[in-house]
């Protein structure tokens, strides 16, 4: 009977393995891109990556994590290319020799979303810093990513410019979700609280509850994305050739046009800004 149970499992295993093996091995070892939840959850990568594969025949797969985690995957050599959004950290990453180079790809912007009745009065504010100041002065609930992601870093830069340290209010009006943009927006929708989101994830997010965009359009809310080749000299198994092909494609006319053409509800989410050769 043990043999029979074992053979049953073996049979089930065999029956299911062909499904998995078929689609893993069809791709060989695909190029691996670490990117942020904002580009994956908004559907951008799902839209443009198949075009890249069609143009070049190169299979590519995405690990979607926060920018901090993506940089770590690059540091350990577990991925080939990074598409991230934390300019200072990206430059430091390349300067330290973990990345071969960085190039501009596109930008979008952050928006502050919050309850439609806007208890802290953000709609009347002139800039992002004073909007954040109002939230703190009013002790209105604010959900932070708190996960070292690009969005979290942008949020902390704005807090820094206000000279307010929100972390001392952590657990009271300032709540750190420690998770991705989508999970954080679910939390904000549940609490009816303010939060900083990239516009792409916000527009494609389906559980908005009573939240609305209450502040947008200030330069500190700019959100530039860069692409980095993980340094093949540090990690010999990096697929440098295919990775370079991808970087050339996404910064070239085909990729840039695909980014510009990507829309949700007729709104353009990402604006290509690679240096044209």
């Amino acid at each position: 009977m043990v043999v029979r149970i074992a053979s049953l499992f073996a049979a089930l295993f065999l029956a299911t393995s062909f499904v998995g093996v078929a689609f893993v091995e069809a791709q060989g070892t695909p190029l691996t891109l670490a990117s942020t939840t904002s580009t994956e959850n908004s559907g951008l990568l799902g839209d443009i990556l198949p075009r890249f594969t069609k143009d070049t025949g190169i299979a590519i797969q995405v690990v979607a994590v926060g920018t901090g985690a993506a940089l770590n995957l690059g540091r350990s050599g577990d991925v080939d290319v990074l598409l991230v959004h934390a300019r200072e950290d990206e430059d430091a990453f390349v300067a330290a020799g973990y990345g071969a180079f960085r190039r501009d790809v596109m930008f979008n912007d952050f928006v502050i979303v919050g309850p439609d009745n806007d208890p802290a009065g953000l709609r009347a504010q002139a800039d992002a810093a004073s909007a954040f100041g109002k939230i703190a002065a009013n002790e209105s609930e604010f959900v932070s990513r708190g996960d070292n992601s690009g969005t979290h870093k942008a949020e902390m830069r704005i807090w820094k410019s206000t000279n307010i340290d929100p972390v001392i209010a952590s657990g009271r009006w300032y709540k750190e979700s420690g998770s991705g943009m989508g999970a954080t927006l679910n939390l904000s929708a549940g609490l009816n609280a303010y939060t900083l989101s990239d516009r792409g994830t916000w527009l494609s997010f389906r559980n908005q509850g009573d939240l609305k965009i209450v502040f947008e359009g200030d330069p500190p809310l700019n959100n530039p994305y860069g692409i980095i080749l993980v340094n093949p000299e540090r990690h010999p198994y990096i697929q440098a050739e295919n990775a370079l092909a991808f970087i050339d494609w996404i910064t070239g006319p085909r990729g840039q046009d695909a980014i510009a053409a990507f829309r949700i509800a007729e709104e353009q989410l990402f604006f290509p800004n690679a240096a044209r050769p």
Partner: protein
Amino acid sequence: MSTILNAFSEAGALLASFDADFLAIVGLSLRVSLSAVLIACLIGFPLGAAVALFRFPGRGAVALMLNTFMGLPPVVIGLLVFLILSRSGPLGVLGLLFTPTAMIIAQAILVTPIIAALTRQTVEDLWREYGDHLRSLDARPLDRLGTLIYDARFSLTTAVLAGFGRAIAEVGAVMIVGGNIDHATRVMTTAIALETSKGNLATALGLGIVLLVIALAVTATVQVINAIGARKAAIV
């Protein structure tokens, strides 16, 4: 409330669609979890029975460890396997990170203590009952081990199902070592987490319902086979 109701229609639509991507996710979930359970059985049955039958120093401590490790946190095991399989880790040369194999390894580590601990208890109880008999037959230790595992086979099914339940429902470990890569390492639970983070709550819950249906189908299959086996054993 409407989200919960929508989830049922989403689940029905998913099951009826036979969508290739969806079937691949279901297939990978079963492949990963069943493989992990198979490996866990191959290690856990003899390990648990050995702890039950043989007297050796530290036996109590091993039994305590097995019982404790039934509660291993998936995220921690995921992180540990991640660090070992990472290109910078000790087994990085294998290039296994972000593959189904990595997911099977992580789940096998989670499931093995469950199978081993439940096997130990079951075999120990049987040994108390039939120990004298086996001793009087002068059975060699390895024969005793095999005989008792064989005699416990119907009770051990529950251990196998407990292990399978743990594996198929687990998200923390497979998310970290698999990376939830579309068409490569996305399984039911990581797909549910992804849909939740997209705010597609009805789709996420619908996938959860499908996951339960699949778990039900696997469990029912094992139970039916078990019942047939038990009836045959009773006749013989």
